[in-house]
Each structure stands twice: as C-alpha cells, then as structure tokens.
C-alpha cells in the first residue's frame, strides 16, 4: 500500500494523457507535482481572457478574479510559471486569499475530462480516508454517493462507478479530485471488494431511502 502523497515522478505515466488535455491538464499535473514534494513554490497561471491566477503553496492559498464556478473547462492558451519561494519571502498576495482546496476540487473534477489523471496508475484501488468539505465545494448527489462508497472500501474507478450507479467518467473525475486533495488511500495489491448481495445499496423492495428522499426533495 502506498500513500498517494508520496512518490516523486514528475512525468506523466499515462501515454494518452496529452490527448485528454483541455488546457488544464498540464497545469493540474504541475500543481500535483508541487503538492507531492510539498515544495514552497509560487505559481502563476495565465488563461487567455482572464486575469492571472496566483497560488502560494506555502499558505495553501490562491487568488483569482474569475469565479471558480465559471471556470472555463476548455481553456485555450493556458500557460504557467513556477518559482521557488525564497526563504522568508512575503506571501505572493494578501492573505488569506482562497483555500487552495477549492481550486483543487474544481481542477481535479474537470482537468482530465473523464479519464484517469496521469499521476495515477491503472490497476490501483482507492479508499477515502477523509471526506472533502462538501460545504465548500459545488457538488452533485452522485458525487456524495460515490464518496459514501469510497469511505467503505477500496475500489477501482470502474468498480466505484458500478457500486454507485454512476458513469465511469464521473468516477474518474472524482478520484482525480480526491487524489489532488490528498484524501485517498491508494493500494495496488488489495483484492476487489466482494459484496454478497446486490451491490448498489438498493434493497429488493425497491429504491433505496436515499433515492426516494432524493426524488421527494427533487435533488
């Protein structure tokens, strides 16, 4: 078993990752690399048509004039520069800024458009060890459902999708986001989870309480 925050490869391991890139893939990859080595870095990202986005990794914070909910999923001309923060250098912008977690959630969920992030390896299984703060992330109930699944065992993205009744692309997106947020345990050698009965949380008497309440509340 290996902690997802360790490992220091800076090269994409998935051969087709470039093909999936919507402009954000490389930036997200760079961000993940910096997080992996916990380096005291500064990052400036330029997206055409937007003010620059600044990240100060020492403070786990970012600033951007653009509302994250408007984040252009397909960005052309995304360029970025990293810089090592000098010892004792002042923050890159006025703190507190925004929590970097907000950006990681959005990037993780969008950067690889339904494919596994290049720093993750096919064949791995994942288990949630800490819930993201859903109070601060825009999310869908399907994501909550997948999180509840992941809190109970190790799943590959495909297994997760089946267990939660979600499209596999969404499972990949969520795993990417959780990995970026350092909320996963990763294992390459754990066996698939074997569930004796129906695996979707649905009892034979029909839809689960979750499904019924969800329908009732129209969510």
């Amino acid at each position, binding site marked *: 078993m290996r902690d997802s925050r360790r490992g220091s490869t800076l090269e994409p391991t998935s051969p087709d990752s470039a093909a999936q890139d919507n402009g954000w893939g490389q930036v997200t990859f760079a961000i993940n690399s910096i997080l992996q080595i916990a380096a005291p870095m500064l990052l400036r990202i330029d997206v055409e048509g937007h003010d620059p986005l600044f990240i100060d990794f020492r403070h786990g914070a970012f600033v951007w004039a653009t509302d994250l909910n408007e984040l252009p999923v397909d960005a052309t001309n995304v360029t970025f520069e990293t810089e090592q923060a000098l010892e004792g250098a002042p923050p890159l912008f006025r703190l507190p800024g925004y929590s970097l977690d907000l950006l990681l959630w959005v990037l993780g969920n969008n950067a690889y458009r339904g494919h596994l992030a290049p720093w993750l390896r096919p064949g791995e299984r994942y288990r949630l060890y800490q819930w993201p703060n859903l109070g601060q992330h825009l999310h869908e109930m399907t994501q909550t459902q997948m999180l509840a699944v992941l809190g*109970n065992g*190790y799943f590959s993205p495909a297994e997760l999708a089946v267990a939660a009744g979600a499209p596999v692309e969404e499972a990949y997106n969520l795993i990417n986001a959780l990995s970026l947020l350092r909320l996963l345990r990763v294992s390459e050698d754990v066996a698939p989870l074997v569930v004796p009965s129906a695996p979707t949380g649905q009892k034979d008497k029909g839809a689960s309480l979750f499904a019924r309440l969800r329908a009732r509340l129209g969510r």
Partner: protein
Amino acid sequence: MGAGMTTAIKALSEIEVVSTEANNSERDVVDKPTTTVALDYGEIVLSNDEKIRMYGIPGQRRFDFMWAILKTRAEGMVLLVNNDAENPIAEMLAFVEDFRELCYKGGVVVGVSRSEIAPQPTTGEFARALAEVHPELTVPIFTLDPRSKDQMQMALLTLIVNLEMRETFGEAGVQQA
C-alpha cells in the same frame, strides 16, 4: 447550545415544528433568549405510510437523558458543532464517544456551523483530530449553515447515503483491508 439545532429542524421540516423552548438562564454562555430543554420535532413525509422523523436534542450534558432516549431509536444523527464555541473539536470528540455505536455504523454526519464567523478550526482539523482517536472511522464532516434548507437537505441525504453504503459495503470493506 447555539449550534443551530432548532434552526436546522425548522429548515428541514415540512410540518410545523414541535419545540420546547424555555427561558435561557445562561445568557453568559450563549446570548440568546431561549433554549431547547427537551426536543424539537419535525417531519418529512415520503408517502402515505412513511415519513422521516427528525428530533433535535439539546447538546448540554445536563440533558443527556434525552440523548439516551433517542440513541436507542435513532437511525442516524447530524451532529451540529458550533465553530464559534470554546473548543469545538473537543465537543465533537465527546459526542462521538457518547454516540460511538451510531458512528461506527455510518450513522453520523458532522456539520460545523458558524464557520463564516469562526473559520478555524477547519474541517480538515476536525477530521485529523477524529482520526487520531478513531482511525477506522471515515465520517463526513463539512461546514454547514443550519439556516439554509438546501444545505440541511444535503446533510440529511449525505447521512442517509452514508448509512446505506455502510450497510452494503461495510463488512466487505473491513475484510478487504
């Protein structure tokens, strides 16, 4: 007291809430005129023969006999922690101890309220403190405004799906690890 439990039940309930407010004689602790001394009760009706019954019970330890009554009957619990209180993490840990069984069957969601007033500690800090004592527990912990119907519904749905997934996968997941 002051975490927003009464407010939360009102946000969720479809019926007029039954409440048991009494004059608050501890204005020095939480400055509000009244406090819940037995329970708040609300409902969401699912069908003719099925409803979700919600009880809000006071958090002050002197009312722990009410906890005991509900503990044996409740399927799940949204634990509201006032982040603006003296030591919110210690409060959460104490309740987790008291509702240990419910926690281990996936029946607890922690809602951190008043976080816009008191942003610290963060939900990550709550989670790490909990993991130190209960490394096997993966409890949904998130910031929550009990005044928001939308957020309270989200919390309730999270609680229910967590319970159901725990029931479906919990055993197998323990074997797997």
